[in-house]
């Protein structure tokens, strides 16, 4: 759950009744011995009671959770650990955990969650906290200089190629799979994500994807509807469901006035400035509907030889789309990175459509600088009327209608255990037990509902009634969660390759895209060819054979 969303709920939904309910529940939990197992109920009810009791800590409207709350959550969710680990079984074991310290979350929560686990098992955890910006460099240097000095790591799936691809991670034991209930993961987080060569390595603790955020006041505006009809556009004035329509709407809106602010109206917002590699995800969000064919798992590289597809007709069309509407974008858009498009533009009332992670939806009603809280809607990314069949080398129109391919950008955080614990069975079990505790089903519900830095990623997280019972507004949560669930569960979701150095490819592509957008190439194709050439160099430098093998493994081929 994002901080902004939680804070908004906290501010907006607090009521005396809710608070009393929360207090009563906590009292009941305490009376039941701290675990809230529902002494007079059956096992199913006990689980439900536990989850309901968890969501009451500290309770919506009672302030941000503290370390004491994290510890309480860790204590209450120790059940699965106690089922497989004896008390004091890991006495004398010391494990090192490498994770992030973004916004005082991640490791800060893990410390609290694992404190009761340490007390029960006897193991000790040593912590390495890293800022997001230092993470990649620290990880790569540890790997390259063979100085892996941690036993457990919080890591994004895009780095799986760097770590699991080199045999640095420990394979997940079967008992962990049972403890964390992997079947409950949303489909896209299931294999091949988290696996390498058929072996499972990842305990998921987060999910990520790009949604499509739009302004409802634009698409309910009667003046726009009349002008749209008067100009002879096909179809009614509505939220565009394809990129072709997004382009048409963006051009249509130029010269009109924003219904909210009265300033210039704008359509889709493209971030034209790089963002440390992360900016490439936004071109990818435009391109997936063109480039990701339902019959082909690959969309960035050829799985046979790692030849880039970034200069095929689909990607060039996506780049050309950006170029075609550059003149319709707000002033100075060339200097707008994804942070700008989301927080300084869309949420501040500039532009009517933007692709982003869940943060925009969460911030729409919660960010202090947001003025679009009551006029924002969500959907999965737009599709395309036709899709590029890379194998056949032609555009195809699908019988099923427009091709949708939501971009599962970054795939979310997971907890991984390093192979260096494998030699010692006690350390091995201890490390996996800690990872399983952090990725537990009930603990994860709490993490998605309270500020943690993690988004919902399990099917069980999308049970709206659990959220509303905890005090959340049903309509808002339903809309927010649906847009994520529909992306996660899409059968043609575009999942990025988990190969070594993937952010090197993104970073160099950003440099070339900046030149394309600045008009330094004669055409989109020429610019895309430059990206492809740069990617070929990286592949050759890292090693084409190994990259191809790892890419195929990441696609489960």
């Amino acid at each position, binding site marked *: 759950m994002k901080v902004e969303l939680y804070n908004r709920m906290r501010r907006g939904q607090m009521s005396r009744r809710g608070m009393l309910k929360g207090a009563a529940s906590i009292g009941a939990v305490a009376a039941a011995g701290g675990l809230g197992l529902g002494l007079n109920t059956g096992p199913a009810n006990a689980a439900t009671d536990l989850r309901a009791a968890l969501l009451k800590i500290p309770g919506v409207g009672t302030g941000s959770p503290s370390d004491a709350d994290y510890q309480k959550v860790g204590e209450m969710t120790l059940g699965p650990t106690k089922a497989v680990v004896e008390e004091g079984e890991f006495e004398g074991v010391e494990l090192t955990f490498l994770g992030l310290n973004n916004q005082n979350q991640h490791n800060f929560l893990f410390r609290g969650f694992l404190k009761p686990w340490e007390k029960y098992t006897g193991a000790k955890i040593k912590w390495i906290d890293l800022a997001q910006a230092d993470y990649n460099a620290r990880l790569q240097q540890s790997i390259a200089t063979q100085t892996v000095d941690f036993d457990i790591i919080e890591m994004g799936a895009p780095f799986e190629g760097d770590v699991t691809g080199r045999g640095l991670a420990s394979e997940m034991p079967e008992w962990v799979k049972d403890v964390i209930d992997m079947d409950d993961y949303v489909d896209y987080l299931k294999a091949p994500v988290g696996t390498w060569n058929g072996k499972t390595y990842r305990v998921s603790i987060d999910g990520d994807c790009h949604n499509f955020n739009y302004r409802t006041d634009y698409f309910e505006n009667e003046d726009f509807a009349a002008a749209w009809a008067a100009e002879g556009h096909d179809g009614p004035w509505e939220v565009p469901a394809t990129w072709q329509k997004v382009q048409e709407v963006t051009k249509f809106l130029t010269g009109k006035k924003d219904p909210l602010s009265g300033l210039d109206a704008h359509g889709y917002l493209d971030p034209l400035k790089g963002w440390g590699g992360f900016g490439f995800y936004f071109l990818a969000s435009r391109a997936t509907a063109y480039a990701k064919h339902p019959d082909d798992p690959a969309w960035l590289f050829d799985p046979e030889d790692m030849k880039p597809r970034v200069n095929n007709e689909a990607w060039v069309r996506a780049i050309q789309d950006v170029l075609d509407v550059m003149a319709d974008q707000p002033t100075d858009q060339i200097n707008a990175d994804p942070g700008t498009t989301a927080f300084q533009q869309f949420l501040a009332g500039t532009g009517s459509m933007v692709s982003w992670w869940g943060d925009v939806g969460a911030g729409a009603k919660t960010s202090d600088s947001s003025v679009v809280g009551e006029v924002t809607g969500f959907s999965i990314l737009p599709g395309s009327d036709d899709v590029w069949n890379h194998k056949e080398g032609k555009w195809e129109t699908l019988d099923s209608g427009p091709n949708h391919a939501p971009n599962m950008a970054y795939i979310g955080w997971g907890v991984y255990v390093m192979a260096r614990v494998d030699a010692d069975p006690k350390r091995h079990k201890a490390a996996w037990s800690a990872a399983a505790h952090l990725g537990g089903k009930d603990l994860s519900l709490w993490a998605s509902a309270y500020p943690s830095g993690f988004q919902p990623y399990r099917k069980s997280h999308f049970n709206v009634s659990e959220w509303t019972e905890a005090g959340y507004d049903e309509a808002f949560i339903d809309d927010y969660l649906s847009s994520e669930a529909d992306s996660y569960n899409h059968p043609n979701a575009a999942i990025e390759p988990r190969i*070594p150095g993937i952010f*090197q490819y993104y970073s160099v592509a950003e440099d070339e895209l900046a030149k394309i957008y600045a008009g330094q190439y004669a055409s989109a194709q020429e610019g895309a060819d430059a990206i492809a050439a740069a990617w070929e160099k990286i592949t050759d430098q890292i090693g084409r054979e190994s990259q191809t093998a790892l890419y195929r493994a990441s696609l489960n081929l």
Partner: protein
Amino acid sequence: MTAQVDLLHVVTTDNITPRRIALGRTLVWGSAGILFLLIAIQALFEYGYLSFGFENWRPVLYGYAFWAFCFCASQVIIRGEQGKRALFVLPAVLFVASMVIFPLLFGLSIAFSDWNLASPDGRSFNGLDNVRQMWADPYYWNALKNMVYYTMAILVEYAIAFGLALLLNSQIRAQKFFRVAFLMPLMLSPVAVSWMVGKSMLEVRFGPIARLARWIGWDSPSFFGTPEMARTMVMVMDAWTFIPFMMIMILAGLQAIPKEVQEAAKVDGASAIQAFWQVVFPLMLPISITAVLIRIIFKLKLADIIITVTSGGPGGATDSVTSFIFREYRDRSNVGYGTLLAMVYLVVIIIAITIFMKLVDRWMNPRY
């Protein structure tokens, strides 16, 4: 004065026996032998020619420290009082050698390597491939070209700094307040400047400067939209931060100029402009050169504002060499190539600064 006179006041006459000399030499060569043995064992082990070795190179470091200690001790053992004198500088020399010379050599070996941290094959020597890549790399040359523009801007900064220093040196009201106020930008981190000025005040929709621009008739202010404008804005932000540095140096120089000289010029009937160009400016040249030189060195490291505000854009128009190396090294883990770029930049800087200083020396001390 004779050769026998002891200028350093040696108070004892050493009686160094041949046995003592032999002991000293044994210490040096023995410890050196141990050091080389450790290096050889570890190198052979690393390259797979030996089946035994150490887990890491740390024992070699200990061997170096041991040799350094023995080397220092041997100076006293072999040379007595003279050796003690050497001890005043020898540890520092050895420390500098280990902190500068070794890393430089190590850096050079990386610069001529193909080393991408993501590569499973690790580092491999690739001769001049990185140099060739650099030669054909438009991003690097573009960044170097930008550095020329950025460095040229120092002339303008210098003129402004001189003007402000003259102002603060004259009898104005609240002189002390202005001195502190003018210095404040220098106290700010360039990253803070980037966010406060580049990302907030210059924000095109809500930023106060954009609002002001609209108010005075610029309908769609864009501060980073075109290459020229973006480059200029980076120069302005950097100048705003560092002009106070030049100003304070020049101000110190101005206050050191003897009043008599200026008064003499006045008595001779020189106008204010003549007094400045004929008296003040020439007297200020040495301090000006120093200020400009230090400013050039600061400028050549320019990166934080660019990384934070423009990421080198639009289309590389604001990229500096350091910001480009940062992307190459950090975002792309391309350690070998990134190191070579930094080494070449270092050489370019040394050559350019040397030429600059020679020219200045010629100009200030003409040899007729």
